[in-house]
């Protein structure tokens, strides 16, 4: 780098750039948080949805599955599973695990009660209604 460009100048670009873009990030975040209620339909977050998210987390579902594309890539996307399979299928599927098919990927048996299964389905239903800019590309997730 040229001699006329000094370390002090480089340092000032660093501090100036970091502060400016962090403030811009805060401003965009502020706007996003204002806009989100129209996109996430939070009026539909019932107690059941809240409990369902808690079950989702405490069984570490995201350790195998993705949800809205984030998580592990070992098992299917579940952000739109409610639309792909429907609530009854989801409950029956979870109850029947593991399949025990030799050599196939296995999902643990979580021994969820009927109420817990309903809560999980409410959570997945609410999730499937988030405005995700039309992601995923098709129903297979």
């Amino acid at each position, binding site marked *: 780098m040229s001699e006329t*460009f000094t*370390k002090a100048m*480089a*340092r000032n*670009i*660093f501090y100036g*750039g*970091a502060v400016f*873009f*962090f403030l811009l*990030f805060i401003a*965009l*975040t502020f706007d*996003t948080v204002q*806009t*989100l209620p129209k*996109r*996430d339909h*939070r009026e539909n*977050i019932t107690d059941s949805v*809240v409990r369902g*998210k808690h079950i989702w*987390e*405490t*069984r*570490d*579902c*995201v*350790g*195998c599955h993705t949800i*809205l*594309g*984030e*998580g*592990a*890539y*070992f*098992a*299917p*996307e579940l952000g739109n599973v409610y639309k792909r399979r429907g609530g009854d299928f989801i409950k029956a599927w979870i109850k029947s695990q*593991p399949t*025990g*098919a030799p*050599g*196939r*990927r*296995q999902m*643990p048996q979580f021994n969820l009660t009927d109420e817990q299964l309903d809560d999980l389905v409410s959570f997945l239903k*609410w*999730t499937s209604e*988030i405005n*995700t*800019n039309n*992601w*995923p*590309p*098709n*129903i*297979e*997730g």
Partner: protein
Amino acid sequence: MQYKSQAVAKPYFIAAIGLFVGQILFGLIMGYQYVVGDFLFPAIPFNVARMVHTNLLIVWTLFAFMGAGYYLIPEEAETELFSPKLAIIMFWIFLVAGALTIVGYLAVPYATLARMTGNDILATMGREFLEQPLPTKVGIVIVALAFLFNISLTVLKGRKTSISLVLLLGLWGLAVFFLFSFYNPSNLVLDKYFWWWTVHLWVEGVWELILGAMLAFVLIKITGVDREVIEKWLYVIIAMTLITGIIGTGHHYFWIGAPEYWQWFGSVFSALEPIPFFMMTVFAFNMVNRRRREHPNKAATLWALGTGVMSFLGAGVWGFMHTLAPVNFYTHGTQITAAHGHMAFFGAYAMVNLTMISYAMPMLRGRSANSRSAQTLEMWSFWLMTVSMVFITLFLTAAGILQIWLQRMGSNPMSFMDTQDQVMLFYWLREIAGLVFFVGLVLYIWSFFYKKGEAHIAA
């Protein structure tokens, strides 16, 4: 080693390498579960193996960062560490907390672990990379603050170099952004939005400051190039990192419910994120070419150059490949993400840690470099690990492209599991590359104990 208290770095580096071995073993288990689905089921389900794999990565990186801090801060500040005793106490607290967490993952069902550790009081668990129980998260904060207190006071009482300041900024940023891991709203969109404030602002933000400072320190030592020149490069690189990387967070906001304008902000800024990584490569090669001394530690030089190249390929090139919104629409949440994640994390963070350890460990053992034959062994481990990581990445990329083609494009898309069966060949090849990586890691550890041949090079 110029200051006695730098010795506290040694247990940190040893623990880091030990946990690295654990990370790779669990990686191999997962890689095998990808091809033989019921391997070790139900003893170690895939999600448990993955938690262990990713959490060990985070913890060994933190150990190495702290070791690097304890090693380089006294030398930069030209004074003994504020409190070596505090550093050793924190080492044991962190090691025991980390070990208990891993045992917890493996020994009890995750839901039970959550109940036992107070997740019902403040629910923070069950989110990717932040699976740690509440006491572990609190422990990380305490250890990080004690560490920051210790090195900050050391810098305050000594010489204040740009490398110290950048390292401190990066590490304080690490602690501050980790606090978002305690925020877990029941609205999934908000949860995800701020989850990235920990995850993205770590790995594509403040961690790059730590990476840059560590690399700059080692380059000063092994090349003897003027500090003014190296620190100027450091500032330019990290300026570009934050100018591109902060708004670049937007590339995670395309499809999680956030407004559409993030597709523009995220695409444009994150497309520029390769720039600082490219500069890092140029920087490393430039400094080594302009070296004013022949440092006997050739292995450390190789690691430093390797960090530049591999972080550019993994974070820069593989990141760019799927960062534009129209591309990411198809690649999001596929094996392409896994491919990028592996090479970026290895190339940037694993390798800079190994660079630091390669430079500092001989010093901590009372010599300026290991014997030539031990270094040759270490360089073999470098090539085996690096080349096999390139192949892991290429195989996962092939799997990802095929997956997208079969599952997300065309008029008759396949289901997820049917698609997985179609790409099985690439998962086998990835596992074989993983085994080669493990051989490299074994050679790496062997290089520490290798005694044959000529003597080590005196300090």
